[in-house]
């Protein structure tokens, strides 16, 4: 096959994967939405999700179990649309899904196998990603709740065009109805959650080739401005939808998988903002304008905290994160204690 033929084939695979991933993602949302209707007793009574703390713990723990944040964020939107969760509970559950997802970077061997990639993240990278996520998201949750309660973004609501909603209904309603007649609501919901995971995996194949096109190819050699790496993390994750995949893309840009220490943290911060883009899209597809606002507030809150850190105290923040990382990695005991705490914490919140 000629070079042009190979390039055309690669392009075709990308386009087909992108479209297939999108179609599967829409189906997944419709299935979960339909299945979520019967979940209220399970969520409220059995799991005890009846306030913000338990919703945070639920999102966090669910991300551990599902090994990914995006499906859990999508689940939280469907629970909101079904009236099982309110604004604040949905907001913190989405945040919880990101806290849980950041642990997955640490368990990347399993995750990369799930997403079809063959490189496992280093322990240092997994822990650093987790530390950055936690320290940014905790104040972001507080700010986000204040923004939601103040109604600052209430006017910002986006609904899909009516034609799109009708088209989705026309295509997917028969499929969902067919499955709903054969499966109990909880199986429908689980099928939807599984379909989200599969959709993201398919969508991975549509990722553009950043190795050759990136203006920051020397991340292993040069030290870039924090704002530049923040922007790179943001843009890359707009396409990859996943922080862990975005981190994986740095590997071919570096020599032997080593990057300059100064480049890593702002990259993770940028990735943590745009990783919500699939959830934002899900809110749009669910035709739930208020859900769109909730996710937007989430993005804005994380972005505000990230930018504030970058502008006012980045050097100190970087030093603190790396010092904490060194302390955690000092011995197996400190690492074990740290991991035990973050593993147990969401379940403690769930039981509050």
């Amino acid at each position, binding site marked *: 096959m000629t070079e042009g033929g190979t390039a055309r084939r690669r392009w075709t695979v990308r386009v087909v994967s992108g479209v297939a991933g999108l179609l599967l993602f829409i189906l997944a949302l419709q299935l979960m939405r339909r299945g979520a209707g019967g979940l209220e007793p399970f969520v409220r009574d059995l799991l005890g999700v009846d306030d913000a703390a338990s919703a945070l713990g639920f999102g966090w723990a669910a991300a551990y179990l599902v090994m990914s944040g995006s499906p859990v964020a999508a689940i939280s939107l469907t629970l909101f649309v079904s009236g099982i969760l309110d604004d604040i509970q949905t907001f913190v559950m989405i945040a919880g899904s990101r806290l849980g997802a950041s642990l997955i970077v640490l368990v990347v061997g399993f995750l990369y196998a799930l997403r079809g990639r063959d490189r496992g993240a*280093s322990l240092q990278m997994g822990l650093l990603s987790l530390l950055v996520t936690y320290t940014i998201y905790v104040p972001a949750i507080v700010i986000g709740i204040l923004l939601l309660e103040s109604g600052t973004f209430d006017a910002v609501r986006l609904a899909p065009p009516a034609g799109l909603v009708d088209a989705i209904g026309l295509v997917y309603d028969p499929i969902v109805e067919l499955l709903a007649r054969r499966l109990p609501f909880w199986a429908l919901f689980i099928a939807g959650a599984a379909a989200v995971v599969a959709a993201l995996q398919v969508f991975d194949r549509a990722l553009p080739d950043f190795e050759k096109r990136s203006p920051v190819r020397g991340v*292993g050699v040069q030290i870039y401005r924090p704002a530049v790496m923040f922007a790179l993390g943001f843009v890359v994750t707009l396409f990859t939808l996943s922080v862990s995949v975005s981190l994986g893309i740095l590997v071919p840009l570096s020599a032997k998988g080593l990057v300059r220490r*100064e480049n890593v943290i702002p990259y993770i911060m940028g990735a943590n903002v745009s990783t919500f883009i699939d959830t934002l899209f899900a809110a749009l597809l669910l035709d739930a304008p208020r859900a769109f606002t909730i996710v937007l507030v989430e993005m804005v809150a994380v972005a505000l905290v990230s930018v504030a850190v970058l502008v006012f105290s980045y050097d100190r923040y970087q030093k603190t994160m790396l010092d904490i990382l060194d302390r955690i990695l000092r011995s197996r005991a400190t690492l074990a204690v740290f991991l035990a705490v973050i593993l147990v914490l969401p379940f403690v919140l769930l039981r509050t």
Partner: protein
Amino acid sequence: MKVLFAIDATDHWHAAAKAVGRFVAAAGGEVAILAAVRREKARRTALEAARRLLDLSEGALSTKIRRGFLETALAEAAREETFDLVVVPPLGMRDTLTGGHLRSTIARRVHASTLLLRRGRGHPRRILVCTQGPLHGLDNLEAASTLARVFEAEITVLHVASAFPLTAEATAEMERLTEHFLETDTPEARHLREVEQSLARRGLAGRLKVRFGVVVDEILDEVVEGKHDLLVVGAHHPTRDDYLLADVTGNVVRDSPVSTLVVRKRA
């Protein structure tokens, strides 16, 4: 050698003036005194003190008078003529209040090697030379060696490795680099071996040091822990990539607790 020596109305630069005079006398050259002092009487007093402390022949001294802020005056004066070295006095309260940004602004705007003074002894006893690799390393060493010979100072050459592993495989590679860095075949390790040979050839008392971590933090920590009194770093001439790349030199200059020599090769 042509040196531009900036003075102000304080006495913070007096100790450094003696050292600069001694250096120029030993290395040969001339000094242009830049007085950015507004009041005429204060300017005259400062100029007289500078001539006395530099202790050079009249033929080796010249004067430039500027009104306005020192950072602007220095950049203008350094553009008018080609200087081998620009010496900047301790900048006082304005620099302190801006957290050192005035110093890093001057280092960025002056396109010549620049010695930014901090209050202290005047002449260095322990010089820390930073090298990222072959690009600037030998130039930095050359500048530091000249100073070390005149002032009989010790030299420590520092390289900071700030590699961070992305993958499990890279962790193993980094452990190998950390343990046997100087024995590895990386360009930086080869450069450091070359530096070691260069120090031996020059007959200078010097040693190599490798640290691992964030570059700016490790440099500043080494300055304090090693009790160095002069820091030597390199800087490239501004390029279009500067909008992407971090200003490591500027950050080091801003936060350095000791006098800093920014070595810039002539364009």
